[in-house]
């Protein structure tokens, strides 16, 4: 049975790229363009992992994560934040969310799906999740 992944990103190109990469890697991918629909989708589909941008139109990714964590049905789903922000502030936000990880943009297309897969059912140390291209 395919692993379910929910990707939340307001940038359609990135949403498409991440969806493609995960589908190629064998995920069943659901997408949402904002936090509300993302949270709704998470409750509906109960994905194995949620891949979420930090900056979203209706609220911050960390706020959406807090809502998901309060809901017993979604509280255990690992969340990987994919963010272009380089500021420490963003890291702290992510650190405050249990069972979460972080992948910096731009993503490495050759390793992205593999990195995401590692978060499922593991609660991986965040250090391993850190990636930096350049």
């Amino acid at each position, binding site marked *: 049975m395919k692993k379910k992944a929910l990707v939340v990103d307001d*940038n359609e*190109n*990135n949403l498409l*790229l991440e969806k*493609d*990469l995960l589908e*190629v890697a064998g995920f069943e991918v659901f997408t949402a363009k904002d936090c509300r629909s993302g949270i709704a989708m998470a409750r509906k589909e109960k994905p194995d992992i949620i891949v979420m941008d930090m*900056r979203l139109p209706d609220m911050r990714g960390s706020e959406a994560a807090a809502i998901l964590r309060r809901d017993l049905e979604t509280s255990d789903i690992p969340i990987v934040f994919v*963010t*272009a*922000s*380089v*500021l*420490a*502030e963003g890291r702290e936000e992510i650190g405050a969310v249990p069972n979460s990880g972080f992948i910096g*943009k*731009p*993503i*490495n*297309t*050759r390793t992205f799906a593999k990195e995401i897969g590692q978060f499922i059912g593991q609660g991986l140390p965040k250090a391993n999740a850190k990636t*930096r*291209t*350049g």
Partner: protein
Amino acid sequence: MTANKTITVSHEFSEGIVNTVREPLVVLDQDLRVVFASRSFYEVFRVNPGETVGQLIYDLGNKQWDIPRLRELLETILPQKATFDDYEVVHDFATIGKRTMLLNARRIPSPPEKAKVILLAIEDITKRKRRDDSNYTLAAIVNTSVDGIIGKNLQGYVVSWNNAAESIYGYTEEEMLGKNITLLAPPGYEEEIHSQLNRLQQGGLINNHETKRVRKDGVIIDISLTLSPIRDQSDALCGVSAIMHDITAQKKARQRLVISEYSDSIINTVREPLIVLDQDLRVVTVSRSFYDVFKVKPEETVGKLIYDLGNNQWDIPKLRELLETILPQKATFDNYEVEHNFATIGRRIMLLNARQIERGMGKERIILLAIEDITERKEIETGLEKTRKELEVIKKSADEASEFAESVINTVREPLISLDQDLRVVTVSRSFYEFFKVKPEETVGQLIYDLGNKQWDIPKLRELLETILPQKATFDNYEVEHDFSTIGRRIMLLNARQIQRKLGKERIILLAIEDITERRKVENGLEKAHGELNELATELKRTARVKSEFLANMSHELRTPLNSINGFSEVLFDETFGPLNEKQKKYVNNVLTSGKHLLLLINQILDMAKLEAGKMKLGLSTVPMKSLLHELSLLVADMVSKKDLHMVLEIADDLPDVEADELKVKEIIYNLLSNAVKFTPGGGTIGMRAKKSETGIEVEVWDTGVGIAPENREKIFEGFFRVDTPYSRVTEGTGLGLPLSRNLVELHGGKLSVESEGLDKGASVRFTLPAIAWKTV
């Protein structure tokens, strides 16, 4: 002679003279009752003898004689002075109307009949005042003079001789009648008498002429002589009246008096108690100060024996010795010291100066005794010797202190003023005059409020001096703002000290005035500037925050599209969704390479911005340097071989690990290695040396490449600088690698430097890292 007979004789005698003269004349007894009046009196005043004789003069003619000025003359003046001439009385008589009268009065002190008699000549000068008939009046008045009265004819033969004349000259009337008056002339005075008679015959007068005459017993006496012509009823000159009295005793007395008055005034003027004793040591005179000092009264002093004065308190053995033993031998004795316990004034030390004067003031000898109370002087003298040395020491130090204080006052820049307890200016510093533009002569001794046209009359100053200072001896930094007429509005800081002088109850106030007008301006300016600075700092912080936010946003916004560009390029290049032809694959690779370069550029710009903003943080860990350097050399090995370069590694075996941010260290070395590759043409050599240093490690990355011109050695750290060589066009880079690396090295506490001998001579970048990075945040 009985008293009655004497009076009768006197009456007859008087009547003779009185009735010959034309002027009204009244003779009064001691009770001021009329003994008799001249005919002319009755005529002039139109009164009858019956209602006149025996009457009180004031009651005459229906009390028309009760004239205040007459009472004054008779009751006040005459008892003191035996003679009073030309006493003018203006009175409105009931019978004769308003008259001006000249009264000439004589009290006869010792008339022969021993009855005090007053002779009052009344001259009605009302007429004279109108007609100036002075000669006529004067002669009549002179006729009334008593004392000795001698009538003589114009040849000088005596026609009348009264008892007074008899007592003066010793000749009886009988002896003298018919004799020539020259009989009375002492040798050499006959001529005088003749010339007097001649003068009188020509209508002249002789008044109170002091001359000498000889008595019957041959004694020459001093007399005062007044000669007047006597006229008969037809106003023809018929004789001479001579009125005289013996002034021998009077003259002597007057001489004595003059001396006595003189000495008395001296006695009463000198400060020292003085006492004059007669030969029996009885007090003759005492100075006022004597009474004051010894607290005795005049009535219990004069005439007393000196030893008896003030309850015998003057009975002092040493005084007795002086007065009774020493003085009779020596007429003068100075500074005779006597110590005595006086009942009234306590123990005193006195210095006595005595003079014995022979035949003074009518006494055989008198003693003048000056008493000086030297008790206090003695006490002072005793104390003086003891304290003089102390005083000298004190004075010396006081002088020094005073000099010092004065020089301090004149040296200090601040205006200084010292006031006495009445707030009057005692001293003022030079700077005070200069500052407040006042002159010394209009300052010292003035009330401070009055200085410079009262411009110092400042309510707050009054408050300080009159209210605050009396309670607090010291007051600092009392701020007063005042508009001075000379120097304009000033803010002053007053510092006051009240100094209580140890001796006496004086106090002195020292007032230092500091003009803080300018300072206050500066302070206000500073405060304003400070406020502005704070605003600026706030603004700067805000700007920095905005800049950070901007960078964060830019980072996000730039990376997001790059994520798509690089991501999709990679997916295409990897042929994930189907194969590409050769040209397609090459072009996609170009897009990917450019995208990656753009990403590098963005990352480095962000890093520089973070470093400059001090926001770059180091995540420290133990960095295994040897393996890290080998790892990095492998990372660039591909590029090195592609450019056909040779790479030399010299990494010391004992190279230690360091505490550093591993990612940053990797970035530094990667930057340097990639630069070396980029700027070294094919066939060249690059190399890396690493060794242990004193404080940590030293790493050098070198090449045989294009090198750096000396003038560009600093420019290469400015950012976006690319050494402009033909070759530079073909090299890729951001121009930020070297400055970023240097900043990262310095962030760790190390140093980075570049060496090159010039263009095409290669370059070498050397940097150090401390064993433990100290610039941690």
